[in-house]
């Protein structure tokens, strides 16, 4: 599987939830050869595009662009890997009772 199979896919729970705007990994260590595991997918209800780094909690400027991007990606949330039930072409199904985690980066 390649990452573009996931990016932009439509995400469904009981109903349509949004689009995959990014995929979050956890890199276990900075040292050579350590694996980067999928932690979850970031679901944006309104946009397929990336949020250009404004998902980082401390980024607020330049404010016009930050405001525009935040508005475009309002309501974004993170679905952890364990809550993904099924992957299909352009469609991801999440498990019933999945958790909407914050998509902000620390």
């Amino acid at each position, binding site marked *: *599987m*390649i*990452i*573009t*199979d996931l*990016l932009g896919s439509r995400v469904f729970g009981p109903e349509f939830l949004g689009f995959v*705007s*990014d*995929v*979050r*990994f*956890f*890199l*276990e*260590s*900075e040292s*050579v*050869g*350590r*694996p*980067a*595991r*999928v*932690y979850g997918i*970031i679901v944006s209800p309104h946009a397929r595009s*990336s949020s*250009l*780094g404004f*998902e980082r*909690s401390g980024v607020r400027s330049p404010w016009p662009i930050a405001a525009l991007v935040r508005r475009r990606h309002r309501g974004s949330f*993170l679905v952890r*890997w*364990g809550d*993904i*039930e*099924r*992957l*299909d*072409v352009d469609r991801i199904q999440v*498990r019933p009772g999945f958790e909407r*985690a*914050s*998509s*902000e*980066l*620390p």
Partner: protein
Amino acid sequence: MTPSTGDRPGRWLDAQLHLLDRQVLDADDVPIAVVDDLELSEVPFGQEIPIDTPPPVITALLSGAALATRIFGGRPPESRMLRTPWVDVVEVGVVIKLGVMRDTLDLAWTERWVRDRIIGRIPGGRHTPGGKQDNHSEDGKRGGS
């Protein structure tokens, strides 16, 4: 918020924010490619994923003919994408640094082919450029004094 890594060594990476479109440098800091896609380890596709399935990991950075499919949609054939194994990555920052030389990677095959089949057959084409660079720097010093 995504939890802090706390005491665990590691960091969070978002594919679009930290990896895609980043320049890849080899062990000599020579730019060799741009990350066009990421290859993930196999997961069940088109069927239900058992709840205890371990998350996929990045197995390779992919570079190649991705421009047309980005504009017009679709997916480039896998045969057109060149792999850089993830285990060769030593640092992810503004650029992605590898711990290996470009001559060991599939990515540089076109450069090697042109060097060996075309440039190398031109008279003088097998000179090492290092010596010439030294001469230039000496010329510059002489000119400036």
